[in-house]
């Protein structure tokens, strides 16, 4: 402790660029306020107020972001809060992506038209299957804590993608994960499934963060600091033991890959995607992926670019495994949410290709970020559609129940088809442009064989998307099949947003591509 005193004498108040980090501050501040509101408002007002607050927050944060980006942003970006947070072009891009995706997710989360009372349970503390539980199934309230939880998770994600040292990254990782663990367990229907998903996600997530942390510790031992730039600098010198560096890198990356649901570290993904309430699944699938890959990109680019020849082969293999697992296991799925989960594993493989394509002028980074944006919107809309197809037990997610959906609801089937085609990467959708930019970056980085494998994997993956389309259009509907709910305004907006962005980015990606490519990481 006394040593701390000694060092405290050198402590100076770090300079804080409030303008730069305003979006994060707004989100986290609003999350705190949201908790207060939750405490103080009477029950019947909470939903409306929380929703308005959340949406205003997202709009406000986006506004602050735009304001900063157009007015005072320095070309290179700034490192603020004693260099722990880097606000550079990729940060801003990813922040904007996260905010907009979160907007869609919040709309899905808030929706109460599809399922009376919303997708969330009224009181999570009640044990499933008891009398009280049956009583609450008829009630229309929902656990409005989901709003602050979502905002906290979002705040964590935003910090995660901008964190310039590994400790900040770890804290951000937890801030984003812990609310998600809880959110997973709050489904109104099939609560056992939902709780189980939460437990699995939590245990595996905690396991993975322990790995991440051990990696941080080893890198700290190696470099004497956890700043990404210090690690890069230390790795440039050759007098230290590489064991620490690579053991640290390996463990760190395992933690990150887990969050990103990549390859062999994907075990939680299908279970959690299936068990979690669908709006949360959408939020996770879109935003967590953005955050995790944002982090991976930054770590790889800033801290480990110099040593890429040592680790590249490993991640190369991981990407292959991820694509193969996603594509092949996706074929065997009979549940639409699990199927999208495996698809996300395959997509994680594609994204990893972009992440390890360290092209000198940063095309790999911008390509991956574009892919993230495109994928996020498509996924949110897809889960929005999934939440519409219901029978008396809640969502009808088994594929056989989707048979002949096009006859019942041609519009829903049409939009879903479009989204599936986007996931498959068919041209004129954002999914294609995303794949295209990632693969071109990879080819320029000399990863051609990987790209070829990826192409084959996407062809295989296309098969299971097609299977759903076949089911919806060419099969006869089951006699007691699900109905398609008429979505309320929120879900409609969310789905429309996702689908329109998917289309627009497929046709005119230039604006976003340019924006993604404006700058590189601050190092």
């Amino acid at each position: 402790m006394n040593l701390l005193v000694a060092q405290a004498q050198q402590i100076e108040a770090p300079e804080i660029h409030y303008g730069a980090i305003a979006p994060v501050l707004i989100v986290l501040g609003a999350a705190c306020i949201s908790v207060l509101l939750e405490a103080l408002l009477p029950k019947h007002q909470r939903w409306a107020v929380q929703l308005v607050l959340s949406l205003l927050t997202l709009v406000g944060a986006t506004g602050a972001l735009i304001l900063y980006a157009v007015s005072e942003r320095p070309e290179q970006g700034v490192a603020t809060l004693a260099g722990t947070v880097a606000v550079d072009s990729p940060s801003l891009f990813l922040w904007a992506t996260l905010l907009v995706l979160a907007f869609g997710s919040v709309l899905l989360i808030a929706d109460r038209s599809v399922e009376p009372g919303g997708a969330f349970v009224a009181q999570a503390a009640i044990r499933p299957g008891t009398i009280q539980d049956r009583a609450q199934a008829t009630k229309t309230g929902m656990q409005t804590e989901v709003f602050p939880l979502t905002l906290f998770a979002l705040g964590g994600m935003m910090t995660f993608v901008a964190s310039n040292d590994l400790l900040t990254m770890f804290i951000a990782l937890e801030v984003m994960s812990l609310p998600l663990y809880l959110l997973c367990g709050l489904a109104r229907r099939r609560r056992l499934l939902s709780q189980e998903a939460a437990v699995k996600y939590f245990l595996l997530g905690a396991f993975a963060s322990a790995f991440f942390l051990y990696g941080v510790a080893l890198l700290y031992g190696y470099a004497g600091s956890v700043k990404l730039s210090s690690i890069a600098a230390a790795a440039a010198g050759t007098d230290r033991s590489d064991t620490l560096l690579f053991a640290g890198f390996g463990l760190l990356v395992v933690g990150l890959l887990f969050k990103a649901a990549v390859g062999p570290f994907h075990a939680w993904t299908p279970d959690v995607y299936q068990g979690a309430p669908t709006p949360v699944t959408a939020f996770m699938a879109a935003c967590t992926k953005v955050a995790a890959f944002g982090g991976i990109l930054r770590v790889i680019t800033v801290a480990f670019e110099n040593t890429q020849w040592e680790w590249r082969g490993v991640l190369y293999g991981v990407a292959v495994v991820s694509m193969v697992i996603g594509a092949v296991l996706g074929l065997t799925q009979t549940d639409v949410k699990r199927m999208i989960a495996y698809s996300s594993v395959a997509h994680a493989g594609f994204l990893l290709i972009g992440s390890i394509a360290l092209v000198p002028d940063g095309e790999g980074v911008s390509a991956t970020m574009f892919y993230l944006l495109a994928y996020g919107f498509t996924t949110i809309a897809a889960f929005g559609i999934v939440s519409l197809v219901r029978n008396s037990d809640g969502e009808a997610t088994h594929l056989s129940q989707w048979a002949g959906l096009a006859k019942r609801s041609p519009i829903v089937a049409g939009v879903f088809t479009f989204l599936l085609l986007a996931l498959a990467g068919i041209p004129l959708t954002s999914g294609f442009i995303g794949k295209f930019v990632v693969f071109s970056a990879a080819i320029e980085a000399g990863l051609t064989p990987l790209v070829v494998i990826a192409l084959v994997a996407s062809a295989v993956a296309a098969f299971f998307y097609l299977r759903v389309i076949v089911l919806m259009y060419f099969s006869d509907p089951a006699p007691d099949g699900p109905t398609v709910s008429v979505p309320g305004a929120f879900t409609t907006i969310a789905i429309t947003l996702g689908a329109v962005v998917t289309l627009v980015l497929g046709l005119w990606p230039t604006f976003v591509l340019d924006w993604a490519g404006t700058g590189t990481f601050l190092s």
Partner: protein
Amino acid sequence: MLDPYLPLVLMFALAGAFALFSVTAAPYIGPRRYNKAKLDAYECGIEPSPQPVVGGGRMPVAYYLTAMLFILFDIEMVFLYPFAVAADKLGLFGLVEIVLFVATVGFAYIYVWRRGGLDWN
């Protein structure tokens, strides 16, 4: 120059030896006249209600809640102590930081309070 922690170790050893001696010696010193009633769980004389093999099974949730609250506030303290030691040197910046920190915890505290997390029934 001794390690500053050595006296603590010695104290530990002495107290530990004393305690261990006591618990080990107890069965040998005292009489041993056991019967079934003595070895049953004590429930004021009535026949004991069946218990799980070890540990009495589950505990009321309220205790878990208290445990969680404790952890949170204990952690808050973990941060308050270094601040307290260095408060004078940290100056205004430290003050602002700690006020924000306490305020954040305070929000959670208010939430728990209003939601009845601190009520015991």
